[in-house]
C-alpha cells in the first residue's frame, strides 16, 4: 500500500505522525477550554490561547458521513470509502474504513468505529474500522 499518498508533515504536526507510528492517536487540547481539536496547531482555534497540550484519544468514534468513490485515486482502486469519523472526544477527521466492504449496507451511519493503523513505508497513518464491541 506504499503507492498510497503520503502526507506532507510540518513542524506543528510532527507529533501527530510520530504518535501514529507508536499506534497512538494524539490530539492537541486547549488547556483553558479543556477542548481537544483537530487538525493539530499550537494554539486553540476556539480562544486563541497558546496554552495547548497533547492528549491520547480513546480511538473510539462513530461513522459521521462518507462517500464510496467509484473513481480510482492514486493507491486506491475503486470502489473505496472516504469517511468522516467523529471521535468520542468530539473532533472529526477523514479516514478510510478498513476491514469493511465498500457497500452502503455495511456502512450504516453512526456505527461504532475504532482506530487502527496503516503502515505506508516510513509513515504510519491512523485509520478506522468497525469496532469489535459496540460503544
Amino acid at each position: 500500500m506504499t503507492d498510497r499518498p503520503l502526507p506532507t508533515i510540518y513542524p506543528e504536526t510532527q507529533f501527530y505522525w510520530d504518535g501514529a507510528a507508536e499506534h497512538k492517536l494524539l490530539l492537541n487540547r486547549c488547556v483553558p477550554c479543556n477542548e481537544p481539536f483537530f487538525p493539530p496547531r499550537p494554539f486553540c482555534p476556539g480562544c486563541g490561547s497558546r496554552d495547548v497540550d497533547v492528549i491520547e484519544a480513546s480511538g473510539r468514534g462513530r461513522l459521521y458521513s462518507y462517500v464510496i468513490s467509484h473513481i480510482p485515486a492514486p493507491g486506491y482502486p475503486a470502489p473505496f470509502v472516504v469517511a468522516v469519523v467523529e471521535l468520542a472526544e468530539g473532533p472529526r477527521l477523514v479516514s478510510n474504513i478498513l476491514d469493511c466492504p465498500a457497500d452502503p449496507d455495511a456502512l450504516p451511519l453512526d456505527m461504532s468505529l475504532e482506530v487502527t493503523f496503516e503502515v505506508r513505508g516510513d509513515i504510519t497513518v491512523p485509520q478506522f474500522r468497525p469496532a469489535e464491541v459496540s460503544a
Partner: protein
Amino acid sequence: MSRAEIAIVGAAETTRMGKVPELSQTGLHADAALNALSDCGLTPTDIDGIATAGHDVAEIAQYLGITPSWADGTSVGGCSFITHVRHAAAAIQAGLCTTVLITHGESGRSNHRTHRPLFPSMQQQEFENTYGAAFPAMKFTLPVLRKMKDEGLTEEQIAMVAVVQREWAAHHPRATAHDPLTVDNVLSSRMIAYPFRKLMCCLVSDGGGALVLTSADRAKDLPAKPVYLRGMGGESLEGPMISQMESFTSSKAFRMSGKLAFENAGISQADVDHLMIYDAFAHLPIYGLEDLGFVAPGEGGAFIADGHTRPGGTLPLNTNGGGLSYMHSGMYGMYALQESVRQMRGISPAQVPNAKLSMVHGVGGMFSAASTVVLTSASHW
C-alpha cells in the same frame, strides 16, 4: 428612496463555450473581456481596475494592455467573481478606480493552461487527500449522507435538482445539455461517489466570462442597459477542510454571506424574483435554499422536488441550467452572474417575466467560501 450607486454596464461570455480547443486559458479571459468591453462600448484603455481568480491578475492586465490603479486577485474558488463584484463596488465607491473589468477564463476541458485553479491547502493535503480524497466528487459530497439521515433528504430529491435544471437548460441555445431528464435517468446514471451519480455532477467545459462595473451615474452615458447592484452583497469563509465544517446539514459561510446580502440590500426572501445558486453538485441548491432562508432547514429538497423552482414556479432557480446542464469550467460563479445580468436586462432565453430583483449566490472550494450579491433592473427603490 434609495438610488443605485454601482452598475454592471458590460457583460459577456466567451464567443464559444463547451469545447474551445483553439484558445488557451489566457485567451479565454481575453475573449470574454473583449466581448464585455464591446457590450458597453469601451476599450481596455478605459479600464483602471481589474479583478480575476484562478489566474495571475497581473498577467491578465498585461495581456489586455491594462495598467490598473486597483487590482483584486481574491481567489477563494468558483464564487470569487461574485466576491469581486462587491470588492469592485467598494473600490469604485472609495475612489480607488472608476471602471472595473472582472474576467474569468478556464480551459477545463481542453486543459490549455499553466495556471491550475487549485486552492492548495496544506492541511487538506496532509489530513484529507492522504485518504484518497483526491477529487471534488469525493469531498464536496461528503456531508450529504449525514444530511439525508438527519433531515430525510432523499436521492430522488437530489436527482430532481438535475431534472428541473435541465428543463431550464432546454430554453438556452448555448447550454451544453438540452435533452429532458427523468429521475430514473439520473438515478441510473453511472455511480461516481455514492450517493452521487454522474448526472448529479457538473459538466467539464471550456469557457469564460467578463463583467464591466462603474458608477451608476457614469452608466447613463454607456450604450448597454445597466444592471444595478442593490446593497453591497455578502461573503464569508469557512475553510478548505470539508471534515471541519461546523455542520454537515448547513454551510456557515452560506448563512453569513446570505444574511449580509439580504440585510444591506434591505430586502427579504419574498422580494427575490430570480435566484442563482452555484451548483457544482446537485446538493448545493438544496443547501443554498435553506441557508439563504428561502425555505426552512431540511425543506430544500422537497421544495425543488415539488416544482417551485422549475419554469413557471414561484422561485425560478438556475435558469441557465446551472453547472449541471449549462456549462461548468471549474469556477462557475461567473456564469451564474451572467445569467442574472441577462435576466435583469430582460434578454435571457429563459426570461422570467417581470423579474426585477435577482440574487446570485456562489460557493468557493468545497464549502470553503461563499459570496452573494443582489442585482436589480431598477435604478431607484
